[in-house]
């Protein structure tokens, strides 16, 4: 299997991956369609719960289609377009984050700076492959610029808390997310053209780990931090990380890594992704909602995109930097 995969050109491999991905999504959509046409359970107490869960899955499949299309477009049209597309995803999730984090009138200039200068600049740095600057631009320069703009806004009330909110928003939604297209631009001298897989690798591994964790923790284990997440427990977490690692090893043929390093990389991504998801849950709890989207606070009209990509936002930078250091890129 692995030797067959290696004999294909990089482009053929990606095409194969897309055929598999879209095939899988078509299957998932068809299954949900059949499920939605089936009779509802007669038991009244179960009926609304069942409908809600179905809706949840439908939402998940819809987002998956959207993400798959984004990846496909990004791959077909080149890294420039991919960077722009992820820049837009960044914009939308940051909009959700800011909408649920009350800002004051004095923050207006800082917000303008974040949305219209920092976000495009960060993606411009990715696109032009200035990796050294792109790594420090937000944590060093922007983290100094935001409070400065805030202080010039002449409003000291809750100053530290307000700036922390903004900086967290940028860190997760812009800095984290921008590492996904950056993976496309990594250049592996031994195996050129393979960095396109790294994005798939990362996304597939992290999503699988999250899904396995979600399913396993529903049936076994005791919540570690019930005030933050009713479902997070070490049993599910371990199962998720292991599943992510195994999938990573299985996908090694597609990547520039050998199976064991691929497994280690996948586990690093799964660990940071699942912890990131937990951190975002704590932030949401602090805001008094369970989702960024309609289920928690329908008032904002958010679609909950951030709920779907938060693990990715945490996993991408950790994954990116460990790849770079391990392979001296």
């Amino acid at each position, binding site marked *: 299997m692995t030797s067959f995969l290696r004999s294909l050109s990089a482009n053929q491999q990606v095409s194969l991956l897309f055929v598999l991905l879209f095939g899988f999504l078509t299957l998932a959509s068809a299954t949900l369609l059949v499920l939605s046409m089936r009779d509802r359970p007669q038991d009244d107490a179960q009926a609304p719960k069942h409908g809600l869960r179905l809706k949840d899955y439908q939402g998940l499949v819809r987002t998956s289609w959207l993400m798959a299309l984004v990846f496909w477009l990004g791959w077909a049209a080149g890294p420039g377009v991919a960077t722009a597309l992820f820049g837009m995803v960044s*914009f939308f999730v940051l*909009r959700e984050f800011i909408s649920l984090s009350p800002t004051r009138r004095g923050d*207006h200039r800082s917000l303008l700076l974040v949305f*219209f200068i920092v976000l495009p600049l960060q993606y411009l740095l990715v696109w032009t492959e200035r990796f050294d600057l792109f790594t420090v631009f937000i944590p060093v320069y922007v983290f100094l610029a935001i409070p400065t703009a805030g202080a010039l806004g002449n409003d000291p009330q809750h100053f530290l808390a307000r700036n922390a909110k903004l900086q967290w928003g940028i860190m997760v939604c812009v800095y984290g997310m921008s590492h996904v297209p950056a993976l496309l631009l990594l250049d592996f001298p031994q195996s050129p053209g393979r960095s396109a897989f790294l994005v798939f690798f990362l996304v597939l591994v992290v999503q699988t780990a999250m899904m396995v964790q979600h399913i396993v923790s529903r049936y076994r284990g005791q919540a570690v931090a019930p005030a933050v997440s009713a479902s997070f427990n070490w049993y599910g977490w371990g199962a998720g990380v292991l599943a992510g690692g195994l999938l990573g090893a299985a996908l090694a043929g597609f990547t520039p890594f050998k199976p064991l390093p691929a497994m280690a990389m996948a586990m690093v991504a799964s660990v940071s992704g699942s912890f990131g998801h937990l951190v975002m849950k704590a932030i949401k709890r602090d805001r008094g909602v369970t989702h960024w989207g309609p289920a928690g606070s*329908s*008032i*904002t*009209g*958010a679609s909950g995109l951030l709920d779907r990509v938060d693990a990715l936002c945490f996993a991408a930078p950790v994954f990116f930097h460990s790849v770079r250091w391990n392979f001296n890129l």
Partner: protein
Amino acid sequence: MGTKAMGLFLLGLIRLLTGAQARWYGCPPKAEQRIYFANHQSHADLVLIWAALPSELRSITRPIAAKDYWTASPLKQWITTGVFNAVYVERERKGDEDPLQPLIDALESGDSLIIFPEGTRGFEDEPQAFKSGLYNLTQRFPEVVLVPAWIHNVQRVIPKGEVIPVPVLCSVTFGTPVQLGEGEPRGEFLTRARNAVVELRDV
């Protein structure tokens, strides 16, 4: 042609910045003659509620615009007339002319209206007391359905004194229609109408 392109551009821009989500509670979006009345905190209110309506309703619904502000420059005038098909009202009473006359004309010709009964923009979270225009209109046109609406978050998009909007998700919640009771006094009706708007804040 130009106004149509401008309309589409504005619609896209508003959706990108705010999402312009409409939430229909208490009544469905329906092509009957209506007066939508909402809280007023920003110049963007008018634009947002216009964008939140479904396109079939948008074409028969006319927002009220303050004449002195929205005709101050040719661009503002062109947008409010061409794109929003707005009804201009005077904020200052001039001579004997009834300030409600343009609204009465619009209602007589069968249009729906978007009005802000506070008169001017408020800066507090709670809307100010409603002015009597809403009462006078419903007395004169009892068959027109009065739909309360609450506009969320829009004051964060452009606070007073700022020029460039920031992207923050906004929504408009439409509530159960209000009716003028038999012989209901003006003050009571206006308080009830205002409460109907405020209640939508927490839906």
